[in-house]
């Protein structure tokens, strides 16, 4: 095959059985690879109502057909499973060097089922696949685990995806890390891996990847490499912190403010100026390399790690009221090596801080920590307590804000910044960037930016909607069109294995993606048909949620966004691509419903409960899914 390896690796940890099966042609023609094929495998391999932390929940790892070729920025690995945080669909993807290594070992996907009795490592060495004892690794952090495994296996070129103590302890927002610092972070992939007693997956691949049309591919690649030069990634995503802070759209103090005094100190440019930045870290095949490797030489927060990204600097910086470089770098390092999602960690701690300041949590609940906004030392301690589930506080926060606020009560759901799905909101206050309100609410995983990364310039908004957008916020029908456009592109990007930071060179450029796909695989496809696959993947994910109990009420936003207007003024407001302040400074349920109605109509979903209609699924080539849903009365 060209592009694909053409094989799936099946691992049953309960029976310690390993098998290799061909990647079905029908599967790739309908879903391409990566996120798409993963979604269908999850559908087929699990029963409705599966407990996310039970042996029956499959953990599926996927790569795309472009990974391992000369198409740059194609190092993404997608992990798909049922989320222990939300009880719904979960795809989370990571950069790093795992996907490339897996392809060279000869596998497009890994399916992990069952549960091992004892801690184990899955060791994939080309054709030789083994389940190794990992008792000596249990309790070790991601960096130590990586170090020991490379030594044990005697090869420094092995790539490792591992969990830290957080995953072992099944923290609801534990991540899977690869290349030490690249996170598959959101909604608890690490907890699922921990529930299976799977400490790590180590891979070494020495095989080859062939492409159908090398000449055509070379010319496309030269073009992309040239265009990528203009992508502004000098200081990674954390350069946005300074800009958002100035515009007052940087979520701060648990989303009660849009800026923080001294916020420049948690931005990428400052890391460079103050001498913390040592070099750039690139994921597999990424000639940009947007990650920053920072070092704190001495003092109580001495350490080293890749990051922080924008999301981390918001979550463990402005949102907890801590604009301190060294504390942020330490917090980032700890989350990386303990295997925690920085977004959920920060948003959860910020919820605890607000609860503490309101007197809803006392020192008795915080194990003596003076958990006020701005207390960096307390935050560092809280991160460790979460990862190891230490004390009352660690155990409470390890469940995430939805469960924690339910347990604590006293109206604390009002400042729990998650939506009804139960995932902590990422670093956008949709009241100050309202074109994202719709997408944050309908996202299958929960309120974040990683199903539709929306940044339309006025020109692009016109191209998508067909009209000049003259009023902001845009009318609901325009919001809906823009959201769908990005959602479809995002799904294709994730299925091919491309990174979103390729921007207009690949991610938002269906023509380029279809040409690359054809040159690599030999499958001719038009940009329109490629996007149709994107819509198919997006709808399949929606169907999975329907199967697991989804109804329209879950498509909402955090209570605070829907009921409290912002109390500050946003600077340079109402300019595409951002910021666009919501009407009245609040994402009112009425306005949200209007936008969602338009989006549902555009998708062909029912307005009463948000379920895809039969004719929609048939049109998208998802008849089999429709039949399955019909059997359980959900169509």
């Amino acid at each position, binding site marked *: 095959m060209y592009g694909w390896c053409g094989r799936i690796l099946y691992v049953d940890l309960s029976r310690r059985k390993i098998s290799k099966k061909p990647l079905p042609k029908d599967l790739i023609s309908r879903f391409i690879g990566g996120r798409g094929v993963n979604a269908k495998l999850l559908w087929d391999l699990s029963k409705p109502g599966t407990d996310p932390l039970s042996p029956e929940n499959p953990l599926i790892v996927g790569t795309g057909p472009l990974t391992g*070729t000369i198409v740059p920025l194609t190092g993404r690995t997608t992990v798909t499973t049922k989320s222990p945080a939300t009880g719904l669909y979960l795809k989370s993807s990571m950069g790093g060097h795992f996907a490339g290594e897996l392809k060279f070992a000869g596998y497009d996907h890994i399916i992990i089922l069952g549960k091992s009795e004892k801690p184990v490592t899955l060791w994939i060495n080309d054709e030789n696949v083994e389940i190794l004892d990992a008792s000596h690794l249990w309790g070790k952090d991601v960096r130590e685990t*990586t170090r020991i495994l490379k030594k044990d296996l005697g090869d420094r070129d092995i790539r490792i995806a591992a969990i830290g103590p957080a995953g072992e302890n099944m923290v609801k927002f534990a991540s899977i890390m690869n290349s030490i610092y690249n996170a598959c972070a959101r909604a608890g992939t690490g907890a699922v891996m921990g529930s299976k007693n799977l400490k790590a997956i180590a891979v070494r691949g020495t095989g080859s*990847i062939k492409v159908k049309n090398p000449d055509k591919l070379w010319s496309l690649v030269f073009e992309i490499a040239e265009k990528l030069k203009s992508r502004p990634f000098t200081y990674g995503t954390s350069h946005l912190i300074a800009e958002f802070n100035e515009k007052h759209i940087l979520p701060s103090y648990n989303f009660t403010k849009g800026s923080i005094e001294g916020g420049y100190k948690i931005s990428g440019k400052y890391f460079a100026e103050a001498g913390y930045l040592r*070099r750039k870290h*690139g994921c597999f095949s990424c*000639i940009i390399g947007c990650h920053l490797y920072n070092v704190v030489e001495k003092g109580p927060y001495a350490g080293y790690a890749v990051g922080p990204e924008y999301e981390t600097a918001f979550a463990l910086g402005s949102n907890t009221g801590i604009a301190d470089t060294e504390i942020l770098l330490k917090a980032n390092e700890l989350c990386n090596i303990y295997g925690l999602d920085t977004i959920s960690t920060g948003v959860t701690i910020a919820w605890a801080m607000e609860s503490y300041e309101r007197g809803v949590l006392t020192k008795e609940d915080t194990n003596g920590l003076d958990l006020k906004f701005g207390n960096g030392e307390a935050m560092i301690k809280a991160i460790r307590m979460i990862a190891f589930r230490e004390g009352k506080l660690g155990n409470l926060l390890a469940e995430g804000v939805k469960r924690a606020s339910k347990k604590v009560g006293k109206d604390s759901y009002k400042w729990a910044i998650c939506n009804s799905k139960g995932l902590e909101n990422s670093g956008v206050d949709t009241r100050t960037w309202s074109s994202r309100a719709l997408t944050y609410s309908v996202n299958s995983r929960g309120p974040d930016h990683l199903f539709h990364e929306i940044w339309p310039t006025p020109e692009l908004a016109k191209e998508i909607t067909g009209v000049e957008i003259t009023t902001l916020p845009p009318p609901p029908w325009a919001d809906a069109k823009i959201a769908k456009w990005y959602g479809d592109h995002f799904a294709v990007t994730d299925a091919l294995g491309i990174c979103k930071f390729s921007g207009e060179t690949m991610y938002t450029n269906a023509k380029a993606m279809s040409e690359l796909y054809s040159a690599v695989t030999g499958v001719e496809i038009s940009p329109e048909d490629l996007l149709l696959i994107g819509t198919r993947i997006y709808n399949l994910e929606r169907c999975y949620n329907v199967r697991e109990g989804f109804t329209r009420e879950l498509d909402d936003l955090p209570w605070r966004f829907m009921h409290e207007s912002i109390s500050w003024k946003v600077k340079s407001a109402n300019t595409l691509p951002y910021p666009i302040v919501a009407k009245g400074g609040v994402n009112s349920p009425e306005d949200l419903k209007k936008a969602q109605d338009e989006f549902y109509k555009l998708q062909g979903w029912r307005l009463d409960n948000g379920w895809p209609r039969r004719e929609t699924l048939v049109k998208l080539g998802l008849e089999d899914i429709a039949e399955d849903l019909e059997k359980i009365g959900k169509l």
Partner: protein
Amino acid sequence: MKKVLIVDYEKCNGCTYCMLVCSMKHEDYVQRSKSRIKVYKYEEEALGLPMLCEQCDEPPCVEACPSNAISKDPKLGIVSVNQDACNGCGVCVNVCPYYGVRIDPETGKALICDLCGGDPLCAKLCTIREAIMWVEATPSTLERKRKLAEARINELKRILEVS
């Protein structure tokens, strides 16, 4: 004017893209063991060290090859391996001070950077980071090349020790 490759590891982000490009260029498919360049990675410190032939003035590999299979073109500076003559003994791998030679595991023959015949694609496609540059050979660039190669080899020895 003659040109030389300069590799600045401080700019390298360890993405290994050059290895993919190198094998694709020479084999029409991607297989890293066929690449003439190898990036040694030390993930803890996000370090990448691209190691390849430095086109020495008096290449020790040429000198040491018992089969006289390696030669250097004085005009372009390209070191090349006569595939028919090479017996895969690996002496060149051992004498190269820059970790710039590898044995192809399939053919058993030595792999040495051929500068893509005078237009090295690794440099051409590392245009954003500029960790690999293809520059005119002037006294100052040659001096820079020497210094960077020395720094890189020292760093490699350090990471081979710690990892």
